[in-house]
């Protein structure tokens, strides 16, 4: 039975050294930059992944083709809340970004 999990760790730890030339963030080499956030709490890429994986509302994958009727399927992972208490916004956009066409 899985209860929960604790990622290691929240933020990189680095001291801003003033005894060196210029701006130097000292994380003691590999011993402290384990975070999802950088030392000044800028978001690293994993921030957005974690947010999506642990979202209480999961959007099921849908194949978008000519038969697609525009419906999305969502799953409620809240323990107590009804999704009627949430509001959603979404849009469907056309992009050529991943098109295989020349």
């Amino acid at each position, binding site marked *: *039975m899985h209860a*929960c999990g*604790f990622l290691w*760790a*929240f933020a990189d730890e680095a001291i801003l050294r003033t005894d060196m030339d210029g701006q130097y963030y000292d994380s003691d080499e590999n011993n402290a930059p384990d975070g*999802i956030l950088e*030392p000044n709490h800028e978001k690293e890429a*994993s*921030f957005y992944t974690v947010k999506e994986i*642990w979202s209480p509302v999961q959007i099921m994958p849908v194949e978008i083709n000519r038969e697609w009727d525009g419906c999305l399927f969502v799953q409620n992972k809240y323990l107590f809340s009804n999704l009627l208490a949430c509001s959603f916004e979404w849009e469907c956009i056309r992009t050529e970004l991943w098109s295989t066409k020349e």
Partner: protein
Amino acid sequence: MNRHSFRPETGRCLSDKDHLEDILLMKEMNMNPVRMSHFVPDERFLDHCDSLGLFVLDEVTGWQQGYDTVVGPKLIRETILKDENHPSVVIWDHGNEGGWNFANKKYFHIYDIQKRLVIYPWLLRNGVDTRHYPSYNFDTARYAKGNAPFKPLEFMHGLYDGGHGTGLEEYWKLY
């Protein structure tokens, strides 16, 4: 999430704004519990957790080596008397990865009249399996067949952001 108190320019000294920023970032990532690895937090951090709603695992200081029966009870007493009235504190951690002393365990229930659960980060003890850094192949069988709630108090080590986002989905589906 495992949280240290830290900022590049002030070290372990955090402002009220820093504490709030940490909590709001954790909330934004859809996190519910936070572990005080590996020392007790500032009062103001707990005030914000009480107010905004984060479960706190409050940890008696200790890292891989336990305290003796003179110093240990004092640390347990001070941790509990400082933080016991915060509703966000739901569990005590008795040190980290061997940073405990079983001879001192009775002091938790002597001082905490609410008798919160006491856990031992990385042990299967007191009905909770808290193994650290479970491996994908070996530990999945253990957790699928075990009876104790499984709660790794450290997993997905994120050195240089290499382990969080890349591995989490596979683990999460498995659990």
